[in-house]
């Protein structure tokens, strides 16, 4: 199973770009990389998913290098409401899903 490693916490000021990196050295050929966001007292919410290179949506960008052993979630111009825990998920089928321990992002003024 592909395990993931993320920083435990990060701090940022409002308006800055935040990059959270996830390491997944044992990622399998069929595995996609998915990021979720979780606020207190809520379930995780899907943010973005990718397989290789770069993916961008209205919320974030996901950068995946050619060897796919890591990925970086990029949040442009964060606000206070982006304070949450961010999870990196690697897997291709339900039986191989592995959540990281999450990165707690704290955004301040």
């Amino acid at each position, binding site marked *: 199973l592909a395990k993931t490693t993320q920083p435990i916490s990060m701090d940022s000021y409002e308006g800055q770009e935040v990059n959270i990196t996830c390491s997944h050295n044992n990622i399998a050929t069929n595995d996609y990389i998915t990021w979720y966001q979780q606020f207190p*007292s809520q*379930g995780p919410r*899907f943010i973005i998913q990718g397989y290789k290179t770069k993916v961008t949506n209205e919320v974030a960008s996901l950068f995946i290098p050619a060897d796919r052993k890591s990925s970086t979630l990029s949040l442009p111009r964060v606000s206070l409401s982006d304070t949450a825990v961010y999870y990196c998920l690697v897997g291709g089928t*339900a*039986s191989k*899903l592995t959540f990281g321990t999450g990165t707690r992002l704290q955004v301040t003024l």
Partner: protein
Amino acid sequence: DVKVTQSSRYLVKRTGEKVFLECVQDMDHENMFWYRQDPGLGLRLIYFSYDVKMKEKGDIPEGYSVSREKKERFSLILESASTNQTSMYLCASSFFRPNQPQHFGDGTRLSIL
């Protein structure tokens, strides 16, 4: 919008009781999942189901069982609750195709006294 509904937000039970946690989804998803979430450990998969009456063990199935009699409903059962099962329990669902995002409920905070 996909809605995954967990029957209780908070639940308090006693050691040895049989506990049922219920989850219902309204998007006709084939896959359903039960996780538990503990501080410092992230989310851990207990069981999942990819079809009615089908189930597979996740990473930590010991002490739990599940039931999926209807496509929209997935139940987690603690046969004899113990204090180490005090946790936040999260249900999720997704389409069967690989790499489909999971949609989560808001969780049940279960305390076993």
